[in-house]
């Protein structure tokens, strides 16, 4: 159980990097969980992250799966609480301050300045994930098809992820 404190520190730190969404923290999550602590392999991380996209609710509940994989039920609890608590407390505090900051001229500057950085970090996360997950023409075609369908239809994303699983089963099994 000595891994619990490390899990807490790692996921609390990752929590503070999730500007714009969980994807922004993905490159750092890969570095820490795979390269530094060897909790799982790069492929395992991609698998858990991707299955997490088909799970209901906020799209980073996969941190629970990493915690469970590393240290069982207690690890799952530690990872998800550590991942949620720091930003939750910050949001609670800033949410109450926000209206009082209305007249502060830098409020708008901070908001407009952080927007492109968030988008950049999320794209960087997509690139990290893509590097690991796109290994041949089948996977590239699936990614392009899903990308196009999300942008052009209102189809439930969970169905697309399920479709990816079926294509994988048919096209990638050896």
């Amino acid at each position: 159980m000595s891994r619990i404190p490390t899990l807490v520190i790692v996921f609390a730190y990752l929590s503070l990097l999730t500007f714009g969404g969980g994807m922004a923290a993905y490159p750092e999550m890969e570095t820490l969980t795979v390269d530094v602590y060897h909790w799982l392999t790069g492929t395992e991380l991609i698998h858990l992250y991707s299955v997490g996209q088909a799970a209901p609710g906020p799209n980073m509940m996969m941190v629970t799966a990493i915690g469970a994989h590393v240290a069982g039920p207690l690890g799952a609890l530690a990872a998800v609480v550590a991942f949620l608590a720091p930003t939750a407390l910050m949001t609670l505090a800033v949410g109450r301050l926000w209206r009082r900051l209305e007249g502060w001229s830098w409020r708008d500057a901070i908001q407009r300045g952080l927007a492109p950085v968030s988008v950049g970090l999320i794209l960087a996360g997509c690139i990290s994930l893509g590097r690991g997950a796109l290994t041949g023409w089948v996977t590239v075609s699936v990614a392009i098809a899903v990308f196009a369908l999300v942008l052009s239809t209102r189809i439930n994303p969970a169905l697309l992820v399920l479709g990816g699983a079926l294509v994988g089963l048919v096209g990638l099994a050896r």
Partner: protein
Amino acid sequence: MSGEPTRPATVSIGDIFRVFLLLGATSFGGGVVAYLRSSLVGKHRWLDDTAFVELLSISQTLPGLNATNMAILVGDRLRGTTGAAAAICGICLPGALVMFVVGMLYGHHAGRPAVAAMLHGVGAAAVGLVTAVSLQIGRRSLDGLADLAFVALSVLGVHALHLPLPYVLVGVGLLAIWWHRPRRT
């Protein structure tokens, strides 16, 4: 929508937990914000549209997932700290339970070729999904060529220069905030 009561006096902690639990069980992928809007603004009238957009813009500026930040802000508006706690627990519980089970099973079954092949396909689909959702967010929040340059700088910082993510975040963040600094006219 104007003139409608936006904060019924009778929202209980239990109501908050139940509504967010249902949201957490039925919303998928990047679409959580749309589900939140139709439930909180449309169905339950806990917020009006203006308040929803305001809270969403706070959610998107701060670190944290949009869905959990929204849960905190809405819960806090309705019933203070307890409301915020009920909302975030509710919205996270279903997905966290699902992924807990996945995490416990994963080690035992991932070695099977059929499972590995399916997960490989799921990974590819996830790349397409998150990239598309990111693009949708970016299209809405970016403003001009300078912002595109800040996006590019962040990506290059992470992938070409291999800088630690916090350095990129603070470095490019400060630069971009300075660029958008308040100007007296």
